[in-house]
């Protein structure tokens, strides 16, 4: 699941086998093009100029006539990768190369009668896809192509009695799904549907003794929750309910100080996924030297302001 959310947040086009085989961090890339996308996505957070390295047109290798993007060449389109593509282009201010009408129609066309969203033509429904659609269309300024009221109603129907959200109505609360639902509600100006105190307490209790955050009760802490729990807490203004210093220490403890990168837990193998979320978490914790990131869009604040606050 986390792989999917990772790509939804802009780690696009992960070559799953490369990640599984751990060939990314030490060897020259077998999938040179893909690795450069991911590393380029990270750079802006560390304030390095990488626009010269990124070739926006190459994204079209993953673009399909239906209007969606695939995870890799030859694969089928899916909203996950479509959002990644849009986020990457937004990051580099190259959205103009897109056929916005086609892409937005592809995404909007995946909304169902009850307001939910399918991931692709095969009909898997999940609030992750609600977030993806809303985030994507918001960046493209085409939110009016979907029925926002119904989309919000569906998300609210996935709200649980503990204040959290699951992937479908009745599903257990999970930090990743909570990020998606809270993010979607934030983007559509609908956070009044969230019981901030109730959810805030559930979320702040994800911080365990080591200072790290888990994704649901009685689970192990994991650096990627530094994003999902943290951004959710920030969007509902309850981030002060956790110990930020302890979390910073946990994230830094997950670094591989010899070879670089961040892992899910101290002394585990690193990967780009957790490296991204560790850095993004540090940004939300105002760690010095890291650019400010928007908690709802998972893109730098200046990028979002550029897109949404100017005509």
């Amino acid at each position: 699941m986390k792989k999917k959310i990772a790509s939804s947040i802009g780690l696009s086009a992960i070559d799953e086998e490369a990640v599984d085989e751990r060939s990314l961090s030490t060897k020259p890339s077998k999938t040179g093009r893909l690795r450069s996308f991911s590393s380029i996505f990270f750079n802006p957070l560390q304030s390095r100029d990488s626009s010269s390295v990124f070739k926006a047109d190459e994204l079209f290798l993953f673009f399909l006539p239906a209007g969606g993007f695939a995870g890799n060449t030859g694969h089928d389109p899916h909203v996950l990768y479509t959002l990644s593509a849009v986020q990457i282009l937004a990051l580099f201010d190259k959205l103009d190369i897109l056929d916005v009408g086609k892409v937005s129609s592809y995404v909007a066309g995946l909304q169902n009668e009850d307001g939910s969203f399918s991931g692709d033509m095969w009909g898997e429904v999940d609030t992750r896809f609600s977030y993806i659609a809303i985030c994507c269309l918001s960046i493209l300024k085409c939110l009016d192509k979907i029925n926002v009221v119904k989309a919000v109603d569906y998300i609210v129907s996935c709200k649980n009695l503990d204040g959290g959200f699951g992937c479908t109505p009745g599903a257990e609360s999970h930090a990743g799904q909570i990020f998606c639902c809270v993010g979607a509600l934030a983007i559509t100006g609908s956070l009044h549907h969230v019981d901030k105190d109730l959810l805030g307490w559930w979320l702040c209790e994800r911080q365990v003794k080591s200072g790290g955050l888990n994704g649901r009760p009685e689970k192990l802490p994991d650096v990627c929750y530094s994003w999902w729990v943290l951004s959710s807490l920030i969007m509902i203004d309850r981030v002060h309910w956790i110990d930020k210093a302890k979390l910073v220490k946990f994230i830094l403890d997950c670094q591989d100080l010899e070879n670089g990168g961040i892992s899910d837990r101290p002394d585990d193998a690193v990967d780009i996924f957790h490296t991204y979320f560790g850095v993004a978490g540090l940004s939300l914790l105002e760690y010095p030297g890291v650019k400010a990131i928007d908690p709802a869009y998972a893109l730098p604040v200046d990028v979002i302001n550029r897109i949404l606050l100017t005509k």
Partner: protein
Amino acid sequence: MHGRPRKAYKPEEEAASAAKAAKLRALQSQFMSNHHNKIYTKEAVDLSTKLLEINPEAYTAWNYRKLAVEDKLSRIESDPDLIKTILDEELRVVESALSQNFKSYGAWHHRKWVLSKGHSSVGNELQLLNKFQKLDTRNFHAWNYRRFVVELTKRSEQDELKYTDDMIGSDFSNYSAWHNRSVLLSSLLARKADGFLPNKKIPDEYKLVQNAIFTDEDDQSGWFYHLWLLDQTVNVETPLLTSSWPSHGSRISLYAGCSNGSFSKLTTFGSESGYFPLVLNFDQAVGGVSSSTVTIDTELKGNEDLVWEPVSKKNSHVSCVWVARLKYISSEPCFGKEYKVKVKIGNSPGIVSSRGCNFSASYEFVFTAHVHDTVEESSQEGIVSWTDGFDIWDAESKDLNALTTLDRSNAQMDSKWRQEAIAEEIDLFRELPDSKIGKLTLARLLMAKAMISDDAVKGVHYNEILELYKDLMALDSSHYQYYKDVHSVALLRKVTSSTEDLSGHLFRCRNMNNSVCLRLNNLSLSRIASVEKLLFVQMLDLSHNELHSTEGLGGMQLLSCLNLSHNRIRSFSALDSLRHLKQLRVLDVSHNHIGEHSVDTTRYLCSSPLFNSEWTQDEVGRQMPTLVTKYWDAYFVLRDLNLKQLDITGNVIAGDVFSSFVLRVVPKLVWLDGKKLEI
């Protein structure tokens, strides 16, 4: 990617891994060729099986298989056995993939897709699920799939409840089971199924969850379930009116002219506009408050078709607080008269809570409005000072009583089982003295008791509650600020719980012609609460506290002077609720942290142009696009207010650029940072 130890690859491992990758690539390449050429031969389909067995995350392969199935089904006659055979093979492949990775979205969805076709036997599914539950009782894919099968087979909620009984019975530390139980039970209670009445069922559930909480005091599995039970015990579904301004039986004096808190009596109000707010405060968010559901009976002319507005964000049509503006100054001479105003709520249906419950039977309250024609001479244009001369206010207690009485006349029915349940839980939790969950739950139970019992007992409990939260700040320091916030809420409940407590915070401001000020400064408050008891407040001092937002203040509709200096406000977006305060004229936000932080925690909680809605700019805004983008939240908050006096010094954002921006956005401002402005 998760839970793999960090170690350098040995050369043999590297080679093996490279070989594996090469094999996978070859498979994938052949698969892609089949997929793009729409080849669905047995050989081709078997290739996809091999691919999925190695990597169940190859989502395109699951898509391909669906196309292959549909292709096969289209070629055969509708022979149910043949169809079943084809689909059974899919189920087998899914099971094999799940044994590789029982968290594969693609695999689970493929199974759902097959089952949804309606040709497969569903009988095995629950058994399959039991197998996966044994491997991992928290596997949410399995739980979700279980709900899917239950829906398909129309298994009863009672049977499923029994299943959660079994799961919890074998291991209480199963949050997923508790969650499922909460879903089923709330449904059974809501439709009042046989044997599922709250007064019997809820106490039973308390007994069940106690084991989960007491067996291991650090295990969270039962905590949230217990909190839900408490909510069911304390909160009545039907929305109630908790308070109003003016309140029932009160007599208010209305004056013409500007109001900057310069009136000597608690029940006096003045406005240049000639309207006074009628405020309704409900115990939960409701919608449907309008001139048809709330009728006003009065001789005050011009109030036939009132417009009721919710104190909430633009998108929201529900709120705990609703306001209408009643006209008291008209062209006709009607000064010096006393007018009775009768407010009838819920005469006709339409007021509904956000959970879908209708407002209970019609409720009525009456107050008297005494309209004066003279402008009180103290309606000054002078600067408001927060530091000079405050005198203790002599309690005209009858006055205050009328204002602070929480109306419980439309009290909850059936409260005996609720009070008993709370009392029993309190006794039980006193036996867990040193644990975090013990103290926290006890504090919550005592708060609940204070809410549903008589006034006389209230004062006693609050001190114990405050002590418990202080203990928790030390015991569980990671969550210090959480306990701080709930401590502030409890403190404000205490302050507003009785006339004696409240009058200790009411002062006369000598330099403001003895107008009444509520002083809640220097109390280490990090949260605002109990506003429903403070609807009458016109001048409020919250300085020298730890507030980082004005969340909750929107209901204080009469507020005209507000001091928030020396707090922890980080941005104007945190002051968004002030936009509802149409009477606000004096605002002090000096010595805060505005502009200091790169992370804005209230960005999405305020009405802002980030919601893709029309970014409406007025003339002033259009002239300064760069500054409006830079200070968008200050722009939105300040332009909606009619401020005469503003203090912003001592904030990182303050300076010449920001000051000149403010002057453009708030043209009627008279005083900025203590200096009178040239007109």
